[in-house]
Every structure is written in structure tokens, then in C-alpha cells.
């Protein structure tokens, strides 16, 4: 408190730029608007009962999806602003401070508050349904994860209007991010909000790992499990083992900043390189955490829309597992130029290249899944097909970066920027959009419009090439990243202009995507069958959206592509199926505690941002108390009676 109190109002509310005033006003208006609508339509109770306290994985999935799309928009607006500033040399659209804040929030939001919730939305909607489970292993914990993420995102975004945004890059290296060079609260916002969302992510990793390993329907052995669930398993392994490194890196930097320790300072023996080391122990696995689920989605989509079994299932599983283990031992490739010695660099360079091998196997297996299939060019399939060339090229430039001596020339240049957007957008974003279009009917009960979807796809996809290919060339021309402006005489002008134009096209593509969602909410075609794509896995055996208990009877699985097989069997013999009698279903109760506890986290985090230790301490106490209360709570679940199940099933047309 002491440091900020004297000039409190000035540091507390960010001032001084029309852009920011505009944003502040619009945020306030939006909040007031939402509050008004909720009150006017008397929706508060509904909101609380149906959403804020839910522990249903399907509803949590919807909330993750909404949050991810909102954050995509926020990160995307940041991108548009950056590209506008770089449209020509010596632009004065953004000042250095703002540019720095914007690329920092862009990178952080896109990775932690867009990609992560997006993959979690997919985990939540698909995994329990695919493996024939009633919910995830720990539904209550699942809600805790979501609300921690949610409040962390809130805290991070708050920095824009209160106190100032972080501006040391999404990697936030000290000493630049240490107290010596960064006194402001922005960096604290970064550290605390990432810490909070990190806890939520670890819990999600644990949850899905336990779900997949322990809650599969009878007969679904691991080698009969859909590939998306496998990819979630692989990703969860990485979450479980990588996120603690982020926790430690952030905590130590926070201790440096709040308590005056010397882990990463320039004095008293501190060693900033250790932060870089810890950050990437998490940071590298993180990029695979967000790509592996995308791989899983592509496997489902490609196989479904080729009307064919996935090619080389065992290889696909083996490559997922290999990637997840290898990717833990590559982190040094992010700092080859730190001079750790040729032995270290050689080892990590070769290990990095090795990741291309199992990834390549996946690419070829997708190709050969389509081979001799019948390819239906639906919107999810378009995203999947477009992914292959983009990702192959992006991966190939990754392999080029992995050649350590060559990386001395690419590092921190726009070549690197182009590489990682290519894999992050072409891989993760395309994957999540494919998954969104694919599972949308399962989540909401109606389809997204294909026509608008195609428009969005073509705009976004072609805009992508126009935006990022010039950036490879800019890198080779010596343009480094994180420059808010550049001189006119370097020959970078044309390529930057092209790149910005491409970004605008992507922006229009995104707007069309949003239009698709809005249009379909109103006019979207109902999905009455529950199986609009002629799917292969168990989620398509259920009505759309699935009832809250998912399966009235847990299915017994006898093969891979369980739903496909049972459809085939049914078409072969029309003997009436014998159904077991229904049993009451054991379900968890809703709880408001995840929401409240996460809100307390938020309050404590906010306090610590401004060094208000008392508030931080109170919040810690609050969290402990709510954990204690949970532990003392025994009435946490109930049984859905048979009659209710019968009624629900009948209403859904499944007697």
C-alpha cells in the first residue's frame, strides 16, 4: 500500500489516452447494461441456479467457450491495434508504452485466457460423453477450475483500466519485470492472475486424467478409446507436470517483487537466467498442451467426415504419448542464445527436432485416413484440411528454429513470430474452431450455419497466409519482435503493410464467425437426431443437448468407434434390442462455493497487486475456511429417481 498511496488516484485508474478512456467507458457501460438486463428480466436467480453454481460438465463447457470467444476478441483487438501501428514506418498511432502493454496482454491473453479455456471447453463437452461417463471424476473441482480461470481473467483484464497493464512481454523476463525496472502494479496483475488460473488448470489436468483413466464405460479399454480422449490424456499429463513449474517461476518473481528477495534480481547473487529456465520448463510443454487436443479434434473430424476408420490408430496413440514425454525435455530451445554451452544446445536441438517425427506420423495418418474415404467438405472438415498445410509449414519452420546455430539468426525476430502464429493459429485455433463447429449441435442442440461458416473460414484462412508469410521474410531482413516502430530505410515497409492488410482480413473473418453464431442462435437448424454428422463415437448416441445425467444406461463398449459399430450392427439385424431396466442415477449437487471461493481468490489477488497484505491475508483465510466447510459437508450428492429419468428420456424421444 505504501508505495502507491501518495499518488493513489493517478496510478489506480489508468489515464492519459483516448483509447483507454474509450475502453473504460465502454467497459463501465457494458457492465451496467448486463446488470440492468439481468435485473429487468429477473434473471438473477436463474443465473445463480443454472450457471454460477452448476457442476455439470456440459454447462461448464459452455461457459468456457463463451469466455474463450470473448478473450479471443480482446486478444484479436490487441492484434489489430499492433498491426495498425506497424502498418508503416514511424507511425504514431500508439506510443511505446501502449504498444508494449498491448503485445504483452495479447500474448498472455491468447495463450492463457483464450487457448486454455478453449481447449477446456472441448475437454468438458466431449470427454465424459465419449467415454460413456456421467460426469467428470470430480465435478465440484471442475467448477472450481472454471471459476478460478474466470476470476483470473477478470483480474488480468482489470489491469487495463485499474493500475496499468503489464508491459514486459508475455514471458515477463526479469530484471525487466523485476522491481528495478518495473515498479508499477501491471506486472503484479500478470503474476497473480496467471498464478490463479494456473491453479485452476492443474486441477483440470488432474480431473481429466482421473476421468479418463478411471471412468470409462465397461468394455472401453484404453485401446478402444476415441483419439480425442487420448489427446486429452496426453495434454493432461503435460498439464500436471508442467504447470507447477509456472507456479514456481511466478511465485519466486512475486516474492522478489513483494518481499524483496533476490532470486532473479541483478544484485545479491540473484540469477535472472533461472527465471528463464523455469518459465520455459512450463512454457514449452504449454504449447503442446494447447496443440495436442487440437490433434485429437482433427482425428475425430477427419475420420468422421471421411466416413472411414482412423488410419494407424496405434501409431496415433503412440505418437501422442511420445510427444507428451519428449516435449518435456526441449525447453532450452527458447534460449539457445543464452550461451549455455554447445553440449546443452546440441542436446536440446536434436531432441527438439525429434518431436517432428511423431508429429509427422500423425500428419501422414490423417492423410491416409482421407485416402479411400468419402470426404464431406463441411465446415469442421474445412478447418481440418486447411490445418494440414499450415501446420506442416509451421512445424517445418519450427524444425529450422531447432537447428541451434541457425536460431542465432532467427531468435526474437519476426521469423519466430511467424513460426508460432502458424502453429498456434493453424494448429490450435483451427483445431478449436473445427471442434466448435463439430460439437456445437451437441452443446446447444442446433447447428451453426454452414454458409456463414464457410465465409468465415475462407476469410480467416486466406488472411492468415497474407498476414504471416511476409513476417518470415521480415525476420530474415533483420526485423526484431516487440519494436513499436521501425525506420523507413530497411526495406520492411511493403511487407509490413501486406501483413497488416492480412490481419484486417482475419479480423473480418472473425466478425463473420461471430455473425454466424448470432445468426444461428436465432435461425440455426435444430438437431433432432443427436447425430447430425453421422458420427462414430458415443457422444453422438445421445440426444442434443444431452440430459444432465448424460447416459440413462451406461453403454457397454465392444469395439473402437463404438457408436459407428452399433449403428452398423443395428442396420444389419433388426431384432429388437434388449434394454436393461433403469437404475436411479447418482449425481453431484450444485454448489455456490466454487464461485465464492474463486471470488475470494480474486479479492486477495487484487489486494496483493497493490501490496495490501491485510487483504491478501484475509482472502487466504477465506479460502481456508471455504475448504474446511467443503470438507465438513457430507450432503454433496443425490439420486435421480427412475421416474424422472423415464420422463426426461421420453421428452427427448428416447423411450
Amino acid at each position: 500500500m505504501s508505495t502507491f498511496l501518495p499518488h493513489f488516484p493517478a496510478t489506480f485508474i489508468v489515464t492519459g489516452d483516448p483509447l483507454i478512456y474509450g475502453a473504460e467507458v465502454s467497459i463501465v457501460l457494458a457492465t451496467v447494461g448486463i446488470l440492468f438486463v439481468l435485473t429487468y428480466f429477473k434473471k438473477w436467480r436463474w443465473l445463480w441456479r443454472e450457471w454460477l453454481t452448476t457442476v455439470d460438465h456440459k454447462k461448464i463447457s459452455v461457459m468456457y467457450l463463451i469466455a474463450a470467444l470473448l478473450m479471443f476478441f480482446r486478444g484479436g483487438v490487441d492484434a489489430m491495434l499492433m498491426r495498425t501501428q506497424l502498418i508503416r514506418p514511424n507511425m504514431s498511432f500508439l506510443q511505446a508504452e501502449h504498444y508494449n502493454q498491448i503485445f504483452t496482454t495479447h500474448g498472455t491473453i491468447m495463450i492463457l485466457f483464450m487457448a486454455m479455456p478453449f481447449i477446456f471447453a472441448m475437454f468438458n463437452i466431449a470427454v465424459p460423453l465419449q467415454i460413456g461417463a456421467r460426469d467428470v471424476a470430480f465435478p465440484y473441482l471442475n467448477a472450481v477450475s472454471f471459476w478460478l480461470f474466470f476470476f483470473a481473467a477478470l483480474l488480468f483484464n482489470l489491469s487495463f483500466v485499474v493500475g496499468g497493464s503489464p508491459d514486459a512481454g508475455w514471458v515477463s523476463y526479469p530484471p525487466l519485470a523485476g522491481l528495478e525496472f518495473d515498479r508499477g502494479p501491471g506486472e503484479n496483475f500478470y503474476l497473480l492472475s496467471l498464478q490463479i488460473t494456473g491453479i485452476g488448470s492443474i486441477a483440470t489436468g488432474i480431473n481429466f486424467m482421473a476421468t479418463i483413466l478411471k471412468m470409462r464405460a465397461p468394455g472401453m479399454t484404453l485401446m478402444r478409446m476415441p483419439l480425442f480422449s487420448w489427446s486429452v490424456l496426453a495434454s493432461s499429463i503435460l498439464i500436471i507436470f508442467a504447470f507447477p513449474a509456472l507456479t514456481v517461476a511466478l511465485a519466486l518473481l512475486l516474492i522478489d517483487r513483494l518481499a524483496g528477495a533476490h532470486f532473479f534480481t541483478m544484485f545479491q547473487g540473484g540469477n535472472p537466467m533461472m527465471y528463464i529456465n523455469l518459465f520455459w520448463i512450463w512454457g514449452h510443454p504449454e504449447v503442446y498442451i494447447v496443440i495436442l487436443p487440437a490433434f485429437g479434434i482433427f482425428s475425430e473430424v477427419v475420420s468422421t467426415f471421411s466416413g472411414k476408420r482412423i488410419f494407424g490408430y496405434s501409431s496415433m496413440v503412440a505418437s501422442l504419448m511420445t510427444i507428451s514425454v519428449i516435449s518435456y525435455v526441449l525447453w532450452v530451445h527458447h534460449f539457445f542464445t543464452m550461451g549455455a554451452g554447445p553440449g546443452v544446445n546440441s542436446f536440446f536441438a536434436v531432441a527438439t527436432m525429434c518431436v517432428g517425427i511423431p508429429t509427422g506420423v500423425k500428419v501422414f495418418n490423417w492423410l491416409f485416413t482421407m485416402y479411400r474415404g468419402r470426404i464431406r467438405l463441411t465446415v469442421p472438415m474445412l478447418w481440418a484440411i486447411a490445418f494440414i498445410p499450415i501446420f506442416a509449414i509451421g512445424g517445418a519452420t519450427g524444425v529450422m528454429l531447432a537447428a541451434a546455430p541457425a536460431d542465432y539468426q532467427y531468435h526474437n525476430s519476426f521469423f519466430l513470430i511467424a513460426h508460432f502464429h502458424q502453429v498456434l493459429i493453424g494448429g490450435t485455433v483451427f483445431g478449436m474452431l473445427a471442434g466448435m463447429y463439430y460439437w456445437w449441435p451437441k452443446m446447444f442442440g442446433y447447428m451453426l450455419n454452414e454458409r456463414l461458416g464457410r465465409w468465415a473460414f475462407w476469410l480467416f484462412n486466406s488472411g492468415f497466409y497474407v498476414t504471416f508469410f511476409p513476417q518470415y521474410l521480415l525476420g530474415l531482413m533483420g526485423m526484431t519482435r516487440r519494436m513499436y516502430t521501425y525506420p523507413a530505410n530497411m526495406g520492411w515497409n511493403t511487407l509490413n503493410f501486406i501483413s497488416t492488410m492480412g490481419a484486417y482480413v482475419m479480423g473480418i473473418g472473425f466478425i463473420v464467425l461471430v455473425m454466424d453464431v448470432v445468426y444461428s442462435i436465432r435461425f440455426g437448424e435444430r438437431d433432432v437426431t443427436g447425430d447430425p454428422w453421422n458420427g462414430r463415437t458415443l457422444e453422438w448416441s445421445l440426444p442434443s443437448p444431452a440430459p444432465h445425467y448424460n447416459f440413462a444406461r451406461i453403454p457397454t463398449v465392444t469395439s473402437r468407434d463404438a457408436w459407428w459399430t452399433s449403428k452398423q450392427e443395428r442396420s444389419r439385424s433388426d431384432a429388437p434390442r434388449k434394454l436393461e431396466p433403469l437404475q436411479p442415477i447418482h449425481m453431484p449437487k450444485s454448489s455456490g462455493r466454487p464461485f465464492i471461493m474463486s471470488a475470494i481468490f480474486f479479492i486477495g489477488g487484487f489486494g496483493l497487486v497493490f501490496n495490501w497484505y491485510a487483504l491478501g491475508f484475509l482472502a487466504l483465510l477465506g479460502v481456508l475456511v471455504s475448504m474446511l466447510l467443503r470438507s465438513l459437508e457430507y450432503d454433496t450428492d443425490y439420486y435421480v429417481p427412475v421416474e424422472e429419468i423415464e420422463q426426461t428420456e421420453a421428452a427427448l424421444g428416447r423411450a
Partner: protein
Amino acid sequence: MDKTTYRKRSRTRKLGITAGLSLLTTGCGERYLVFRPVGPVGQVEKDLIILSIILVLAVIIPVILLLWRIVWRYRDVPGNPAPYDPEWSESHVLEVIWWGIPIVIVGVLGAFTVRDTFLLTKPPERTAAPLTVQVTSLNWKWLFQYPDQKIATVNYCEIPTNRPIQFILSANGPMNSFWVPQLGGQEYAMPGMAMRLWLQADRSGVYYGHGANFTGRGFAHMAFNVIARPRAEFDGWVQQVRHSAPVLTRVGYQSLVQSSIVEPMTFSAYAPGIFESALLKEGGMYMKRDLTMLGRSHGH
């Protein structure tokens, strides 16, 4: 490794390379600094880059062609005569092929990578005695000190051609990265620590350099030129600096350390121990290697 090793390899690869490069060398090719190396270090890196491009293209192009062909041939249109085989999902021969090819590629690229990684930690040329330049990244400017010539410059750096330059990199401020694309790749300049980077220019010229690791508000302005000229001219320049330029005092240095953006500067002498004192700031890293690099024995 001496000069001949550095050179010989580049010749053997040159043939295959020129084809792939023709696109970049025509017209505005001059702008592709990474592809216009003027010294052995940059050359080695460029050769490795070209090699890696060729190797990855060898599988990326087939992948894209295959994709194109498959999607076209097997698309779901009425009356498509292509075979449809919904159960076909295993082929050991095919799988061995695509586990195998990438392994070979990674093997080749890996071998060259390891060799060059070790190569670049050594001076490019043994015949000429190296020149040492101490580089300090300050907020937001570059300070160059010549311990043998006892002169200093800010935001530009003169070097003789055909002579290996030993850059000793450090920072008194946030961590930066020292990058002169046409001479060769970058290395971090970190506070409390000395890093060695070998570079060399074989041709006279003015080469663009820039900090590559973000250091805050003034980062975009951390450009500098490296001016390479023949030995005699370089010596002449040193003499001239010694006689004409002002001295960098300790006070002057302290004002350079403050955050600011400045024009190039030249100093005929500097207060001794500036570089070392920044490096060995209280509780700095005192690495054995740091001290040997500065020509001191270990211990403090």
C-alpha cells in the same frame, strides 16, 4: 577448427544451394540480411539455414501435394468413381515409411547442427590475432569498449576486416541480445555476466545491428551500425579517436546508464574498470569463466 574448415564446407554445399536461393538473391535480395553474410560465422549459419530449408521442403512439398490430390480424388460427390474402403486402416509398410523418413531427415539435420554448434564457439580464424570488444547494453543504448585500444564508442562500432572479433557481452540494465545479422547470429547480453561471441567481417561495409531482446520503452531505438574496414583504416580511425574525442569519465558513464536514447558518441579514453565494475556488481555472478574471459584469474 580453423578458417579452412569454416570455408570448405560452404563450398561443397554451394551448388545445390544456389538454385533454392535464386528467388531471394534477385532484386530486393540485398535486404535479406541473414542471406547476405559478410563473414565466416554468418556464412556457416546461412549454409545451415539453406540445408534445413531443403531438408524440410523434401517432406513438406510431398505432404501438400498429397493432400491436394487426396482431397480432390476422394471428395464426396455423386458418382465419384474412386474406391471407398471404410475399414482400411492399417498398413505396416506405410507406417514404417513415415516413421522412417523423418528419422533420416532429423538425423542429417541433427548431425550438421551439432557440428556447427561446437564450431561456432571457437574463433573463426586462427591466423590473425583476435580483437576484443566489450559490449554493454544500457537503457537504451549500446556501449562499446576496446580494452586494447582503450577507446570507447556508443551506438556504433568499428572493426577491422579479416580479423576475428571477440565480443564480450554484458548489460547494465535489462537483458538484451546483441545481433548483427550480416556478421552472424546473436547472443544475450545479461547483467552481471560476460558472454563471448565470435564474429568476423571479410568485407568492408556498414552493417546493421539491433538489440534483439526486449528491454522496455526505448527498445525500438537500440539500433547501431558496425563499420568494418581494412586493418590500416581501422588503425587510423583508432588514432584519430585517441586524439580528437572526449574522455568517458565515471560520471559520464553514470549518465549513460540512466534511461535515455542518444546519438552515436565517441570517446578517446574511458575510466578504467567500467566494464568490470558493472559486471562484478555486488553479489554479481563471479563466474569463473567470466573472469578468465576478462583475463583475470579466478577468485574474488
